[in-house]
C-alpha cells in the first residue's frame, strides 16, 4: 500500500478520464472542533506543508478517535513523523495513502483501481481566503494499455506555446510525432500516412466535420473551454469508430458550480470572451465562450486604399469574418447524476468582389454597363448535444448522448459580362452567370456507453450508437443573356443529390488485469452502414497489451482495424469549403485501415520520460478525385470521378520529455515512410504527398518566475513532395512519375513570451508577445515552372526554369488575456 517516494524532481499532472466524474478536489477547513479525519488532515497540512489529493467521493468526515495529529507530530521530527501520523490517521478507515513529495494521494482500499494505476499531476493550486483548491488529474497516458495515446490537458493551452499569440489545439497536435501538418499555417493533419479526411474529431463525444476556420488557419476549438484532449494515433479503443487514421477526443469544461469567472482575450487574429458560473449554486452552472476574427475590420482601410489606387470605374472588396460560439449548461441531479446541454456554432464568411464600370460610345451616345464578379463563400458547423451521465455505483457508470450536427458549405459565384459592339447597328450584350454550390450534411444520433468494473481483474466498456446521415450537395447554374436589353437566352440548370444513410455500431471491450505486470484491452466493434441499396457490415477487432517491465518501464503493443463510410469529396488539398461529404456506395465502398504498433515507455531518472513507438499501417479503398474541374468537384458523376487505391505507412517515433518546476522540454522525432498505389496513376507504389521522411519538433518552456515565462518551438521536417514535369514531347510536358520531387526541407522557429500580472482587483492578466518563424525562413509552399523561349530563330528553343515559391515570412503577434 505504501510506496517509497521516487526521486522525481517535479510535480506531475494527473488527467482524469471523463467517463467518471471529473476530479474536483477541495480541502476545506473544519472549524467546529469535531475530530474528523478531515480536520486532522488540515492539521498535518499546517505542520508539514503537505496537500491531500483524493476523489471527491471519498468520505473524509468520518470521526477520528485516535491520538490528535498535533500531539503525534511533536514526538518526532521530519519525515518519519509524517508517515507515522498518516498511519495512525488512516488506520481502519478503509482509506489508503501514497506519499508523493508534497502531496498525499488518498484512495479507497477496496477500490478496483489500485493506487499505482494513477500517476497524479497537479494542475493548479488556487488559494482563497476560505479554501485551498487544487485541481488534479490522473495521467492515464503512461499507465494506459493503448499505444499511440497523447493526453493534452486544457491548462497546457493557457501556458506555453501559442500560435500567432492564440493557443490552437490542432497546431498543438500537429507538433506531435506521427503527424504531418500539410501546408504551412493550415490545419492539415496527416496521421500515420492518412489523407487528412480520416481524422475523427469529437466534441464532448459528438463528431464534428469542419474543424477549422479560414482554410485551416485557426481551428474550430476554443481553448478557453477545452478541458482536455485525448489524441489517439494507434491502439484505438473499441468505443471509437467511423474514421481510419486518428481520434481527437475533446472534452469541454462544465461551468464552475460555485463562483463566476471568465476571461477576455484579444489578439492578432481574433478576440474572445468566456464566462462561466453557477445558475443554482452547487447544482447548475453555465459556460459560454465566443470568438470573432478581426479581418473584416482590418480590411476596411485596405479596401478603401486599394480602391483609391484603382482606375476610374474599377472597385474591389475583400472581406472575411469568422465566429464561433460554445455554450454549455450542466445540472447535477445529485453527486451521481448529471445532465449537460452543449451547443457549438461556428461559421466563416468570405467575400471577394470586383467590378469594372464599362463606358462605350456609339454614335455619340454614351452607354455604360458593369463587368465583374462576386464570390460569396459561407461555411460552418452547428452542434447540439444532450449528455446524461449516471454513476450507479463506483463500479458502474452510464453515459448517454443525444445529438444533432449540421455541416454546411455555400459557394456563390456571380459573373457579369457586358459588351458593346456593332458595325451598322448597336449591339449590346449583357451576360449574367451565377453559379452556386452548396452542401449540407445533417447528422442525428444517439449513443449510450456503459462502464462496468465487475472485479479487480476486469473493466468492461460497452456501448451502442446510431446516427442518421442526410447528405445533400447541390449545384445551381443560371445564365441570362440579353441583347439590347432583350432576353435572348435563359438557362437554369441545377443538379443535386440526396442521400439518406444510417450508421449503427455496437462494441464491447474488456480491460483485463491479470497481474501487476500484464494488462490487456480486448475489444470488438461491429458497424452497420446502409445507404439506399448499399449495405456494409464491418467487424473491427481492437487489441492492446501492456507488459510492465519493472516499475518504470512498460512495453505495449496493439492491433486495430477501422472503417470509414463517409468520404470527403474534394478537388484539391486546401482546406477550403469547395468540398462535400458523401456516403459510401456500391462504387465507393468504405475505407479501411489496419494498424499494428509496438512501444516502449520508460521513466528515466531526473524526471525524464522516454517513449519509443513503431507502427505499420495499411489503408484500402483510399480515394483521389480524378475529374478536371480544378476547384469544385463534379457532383453528377462523382462516383466515377473518384479513383480508388491503397496506401501504407510505417515508421518509428521517439518522444523525450523532461520537466522541472521551471522548465518543460519535449522533443519528438519521427522516421516514417508513406506510400500510395493507385493503378490509374502509376504502376507501382509511389511516395505520398506528405511522405516526410524525418520530422523533429522540440518545445521548450522556461518559467523564470510566476510573472514571466518564455517558450520556443523549433519544427523541422523533410520537404513535401510535388510532381514536376521532367520531359517534353512536341511542346507537351510529361510527368515521368508521381511525386518525383521533394521540396526543400522545412524548418521554423517560433518564440514567445508570456508576461503575467495580477491586477489591482486580483485578476490575472497575461500579455503574450510572439514571433512566428523567428528567423524568417521562407519555406516553400508550392512549385512553379517558367517556360520561355531562349531565342527567336527557328527551330524554336525553349528553356524551362523550376522555382519554389514561399509566402510566409516572420510574423510578430500579440495577445492580451484577462482572467477574472
Amino acid at each position: 500500500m505504501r510506496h517509497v517516494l521516487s526521486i522525481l524532481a517535479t510535480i506531475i499532472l494527473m488527467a482524469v478520464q471523463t467517463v467518471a466524474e471529473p476530479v474536483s478536489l477541495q480541502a476545506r477547513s473544519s472549524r467546529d472542533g469535531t475530530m474528523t479525519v478531515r480536520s486532522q488532515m488540515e492539521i498535518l497540512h499546517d505542520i508539514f506543508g503537505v496537500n491531500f489529493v483524493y476523489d471527491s467521493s471519498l468520505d473524509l468526515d468520518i470521526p477520528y478517535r485516535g491520538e490528535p495529529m498535533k500531539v503525534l507530530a511533536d514526538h518526532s521530527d521530519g519525515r518519519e513523523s509524517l508517515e507515522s501520523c498518516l498511519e495512525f490517521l488512516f488506520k481502519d478507515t478503509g482509506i489508503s495513502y501514497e506519499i508523493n513529495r508534497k502531496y498525499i494521494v488518498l484512495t479507497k482500499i477496496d477500490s478496483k483501481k489500485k493506487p499505482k494505476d494513477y500517476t497524479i499531476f497537479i494542475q493548479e493550486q488556487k488559494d482563497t481566503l476560505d479554501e485551498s483548491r487544487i485541481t488534479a488529474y490522473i495521467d492515464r497516458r503512461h499507465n494506459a494499455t493503448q499505444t499511440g495515446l497523447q493526453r493534452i490537458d486544457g491548462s497546457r493551452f493557457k501556458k506555453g506555446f501559442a500560435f500567432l499569440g492564440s493557443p490552437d489545439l490542432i497546431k498543438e497536435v500537429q507538433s506531435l510525432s506521427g503527424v504531418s501538418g500539410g501546408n504551412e499555417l493550415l490545419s492539415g493533419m496527416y496521421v500515420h500516412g492518412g489523407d487528412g479526411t480520416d481524422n475523427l474529431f469529437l466534441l464532448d463525444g459528438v463528431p464534428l466535420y469542419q474543424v477549422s476556420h479560414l482554410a485551416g488557419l485557426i481551428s474550430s476549438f476554443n481553448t478557453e473551454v477545452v478541458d482536455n484532449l485525448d489524441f489517439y494515433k494507434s491502439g484505438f479503443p473499441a468505443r471509437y469508430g467511423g474514421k481510419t487514421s486518428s481520434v481527437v477526443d475533446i472534452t469541454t469544461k462544465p461551468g464552475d458550480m460555485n463562483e463566476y469567472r471568465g476571461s477576455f482575450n484579444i489578439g492578432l487574429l481574433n478576440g474572445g470572451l468566456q464566462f462561466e458560473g453557477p445558475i443554482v449554486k452547487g447544482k447548475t452552472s453555465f459556460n459560454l465562450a465566443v470568438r470573432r476574427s478581426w479581418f473584416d475590420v482590418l480590411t476596411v482601410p485596405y479596401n478603401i486604399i486599394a480602391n483609391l489606387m484603382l482606375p476610374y470605374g474599377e472597385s474591389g472588396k475583400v472581406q472575411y469574418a469568422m465566429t464561433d460560439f460554445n455554450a454549455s449548461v450542466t445540472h447535477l441531479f445529485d453527486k451521481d447524476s448529471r445532465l449537460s446541454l452543449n451547443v457549438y456554432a461556428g461559421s466563416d464568411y468570405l467575400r471577394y468582389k470586383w467590378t469594372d464600370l464599362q463606358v462605350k460610345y456609339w454614335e455619340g451616345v454614351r452607354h455604360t454597363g458593369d463587368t465583374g464578379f462576386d464570390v460569396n463563400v459561407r461555411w460552418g458547423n452547428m452542434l447540439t448535444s444532450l449528455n446524461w451521465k449516471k454513476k450507479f455505483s463506483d463500479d458502474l457508470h452510464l453515459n448517454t448522448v443525444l445529438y444533432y450536427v449540421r455541416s454546411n458549405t455555400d459557394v456563390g459565384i456571380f459573373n457579369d459580362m457586358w459588351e458593346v459592339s456593332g458595325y451598322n447597328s448597336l449591339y449590346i450584350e449583357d451576360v449574367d452567370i451565377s453559379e452556386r454550390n452548396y452542401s449540407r450534411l445533417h447528422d442525428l444520433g444517439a449513443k449510450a456507453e456503459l462502464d462496468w468494473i465487475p472485479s479487480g481483474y476486469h473493466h468492461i466498456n460497452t456501448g451502442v450508437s446510431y446516427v442518421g446521415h442526410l447528405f445533400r450537395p447541390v449545384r445551381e447554374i443560371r445564365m441570362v443573356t440579353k441583347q439590347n436589353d432583350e432576353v435572348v437566352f435563359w438557362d437554369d440548370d441545377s443538379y443535386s443529390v440526396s442521400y439518406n444513410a444510417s450508421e449503427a455500431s455496437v462494441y464491447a471491450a474488456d480491460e483485463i488485469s491479470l497481474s501487476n505486470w500484464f494488462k490487456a484491452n480486448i475489444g470488438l466493434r461491429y458497424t452497420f452502414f446502409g445507404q439506399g441499396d448499399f449495405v456494409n457490415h464491418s467487424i473491427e477487432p481492437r487489441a492492446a497489451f501492456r507488459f510492465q517491465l519493472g516499475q518504470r518501464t512498460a512495453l505495449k503493443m496493439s492491433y486495430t482495424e477501422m472503417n470509414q463510410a463517409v468520404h470527403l469529396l474534394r478537388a484539391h488539398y486546401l482546406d477550403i469549403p469547395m468540398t462535400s461529404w458523401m456516403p459510401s456506395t456500391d462504387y465507393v465502398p468504405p475505407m479501411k485501415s489496419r494498424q499494428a504498433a509496438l512501444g516502449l515507455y520508460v521513466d528515466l531518472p531526473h524526471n525524464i520520460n522516454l517513449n519509443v513507438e513503431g507502427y505499420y499501417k495499411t489503408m484500402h479503398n483510399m480515394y483521389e478525385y480524378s475529374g478536371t474541374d480544378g476547384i469544385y468537384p463534379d457532383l453528377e458523376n462523382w462516383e466515377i470521378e473518384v479513383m480508388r487505391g491503397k496506401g501504407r505507412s510505417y515508421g518509428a517515433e521517439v518522444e523525450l520529455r523532461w520537466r522541472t518546476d521551471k522548465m518543460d522540454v519535449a522533443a519528438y522525432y519521427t522516421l516514417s515512410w508513406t506510400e500510395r498505389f493507385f493503378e490509374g496513376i502509376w504502376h507501382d507504389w509511389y511516395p505520398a504527398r506528405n511522405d516526410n521522411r524525418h520530422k523533429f519538433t522540440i518545445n521548450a518552456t522556461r518559467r523564470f518566475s510566476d510573472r514571466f515565462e518564455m517558450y520556443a518551438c523549433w519544427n523541422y521536417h523533410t520537404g513535401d513532395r510535388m510532381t514536376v514535369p521532367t520531359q517534353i514531347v512536341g511542346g507537351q510536358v510529361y510527368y515521368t512519375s508521381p511525386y518525383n520531387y521533394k521540396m526543400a526541407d522545412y524548418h521554423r522557429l517560433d518564440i514567445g513570451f508570456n508576461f503575467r500580472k495580477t491586477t489591482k482587483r486580483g485578476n490575472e492578466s497575461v500579455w503574450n508577445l510572439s514571433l512566428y518563424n523567428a528567423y524568417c525562413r521562407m519555406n516553400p509552399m508550392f512549385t512553379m515552372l517558367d517556360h520561355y523561349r531562349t531565342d527567336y530563330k527557328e527551330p524554336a528553343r525553349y528553356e524551362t526554369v523550376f522555382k519554389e515559391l514561399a509566402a510566409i515570412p516572420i510574423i510578430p503577434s500579440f495577445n492580451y488575456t484577462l482572467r477574472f
Partner: protein
Amino acid sequence: MKRYIYIAAVLLAVSCEKEVDFPADETGRIYVEAILGENAGNRINLIVSQPAFGSEDTSAEDIALNLKADGETVAIVRDLDYVPDVEGGISYLVQEGFQPGQTLELEAQSSDLPSVRAVTTVPAPIPEVKLTHREVLTYKDNEPGQTMNSLVTLLEFHLLIDEKPDKDEYFGIQICRRTVYDTVGTVPGLVWKSYKDRSGIEEYDDLYADAGRGEGNAISSEKKEMFVLYDGGEMMVIPAEAEGEGAAVNAYVYPTKNRLVNASYGGKDNYEIYEVYEYNVRLYRLSPEMFRCLKGRYIINNSRVPIHLGFSPVTYTYTNVKGGLGIFGAVSEYESGWFRIRGYEEKWNI
C-alpha cells in the same frame, strides 16, 4: 506614395520566388505511341523526348524495336514515308493484325537512352452494335468545366451493344466524316477533277492519332450505362439509357449540309455537283492501360489548376511504357462502314 507601395509589393513578390536546381533527367526518354488492333497496318511511332530542364537534339533513328505477340516475334517494317509530327520521330508498320486475347509485348533499346518495355492485351471483340441516328436540339458544352451551355442543333448517333460490360472495361468512339461529290448530268473533265481532288476524310475525333496532344474520348462501363468520363474536340459523347441488359452511348457532332456547289444550265453543259457527307462510326473496346493513358492526358490538359502547383489531389502520370513515356495500347473494333444519312439529303438539298 503609390509608387513606393507598388515597389514594395513587387520586391515582396519577387523575393518569395527561388529558382532551384531540379534533379531532372539528363537525357530524354523513348516515347512510344502505338494502338494495335485486329486490322493489319497498325503503326508504332517512336519519338525521343527532350529533358524539361535542358535541351538536346533528339532522334529516334538508333532505337531498336522488338514486338511480340504471345511470345512470338511480330514482323515490323520501317515506314520511310512517314512524316513525323515531332522532329526526329520515326514510325514502324506492323504487318499483321491481332486477335482478341493476345498479349502484346514491346521492347525498345537505345545506346543513349533508358530501355523501355510495355505490355498490353487485345481486348475481347465488340459484340453486335445497333447504330441509329437523328437530328436533335440540345446543349453542347464548349469546354470541360465551363458552365456556359450552348443550345445547338446536333446530329446524334446512338450506339447500342447487347452486352453488359464489366467494371474494368472501357470503350471509345470515333466518328469520321468524308466529303464526296455527287453529280447530276455530265460534268466536264476539268471541272470534275478539281472536286475529285478535294474529297477526303475528315475525322471528327480520333482516339489516338493525336495521342498526347489531343483530347480523348472514352466511355467507362463501370455502370450499366456507358458513361463518358470526359469530353473534348468537336464531338460530344454522353451516356444513354440502355435497353435490356445492354449498354448504350450517344455521340453528337455538328450536322453538315449537303449542298450544291457547282451547276451549269443551258448550253452544252448541264450538270450539278453536290457536296455530300458520309459517316463512318467506329466503336472501340480499349485495353485498360490505354484508357488510363488517354484519361491522364486529358486531365492534365484540361485541369484549371496546374498539377505541379501541388494542390491537386491526383496527378496523372500514368504510362504503361516502363522506363519511358507514351501509350502502348490495344483495341477491338467495330466499324459501321461509310454510310449516308437517308432523308437527310433530301431535307438539306437545295
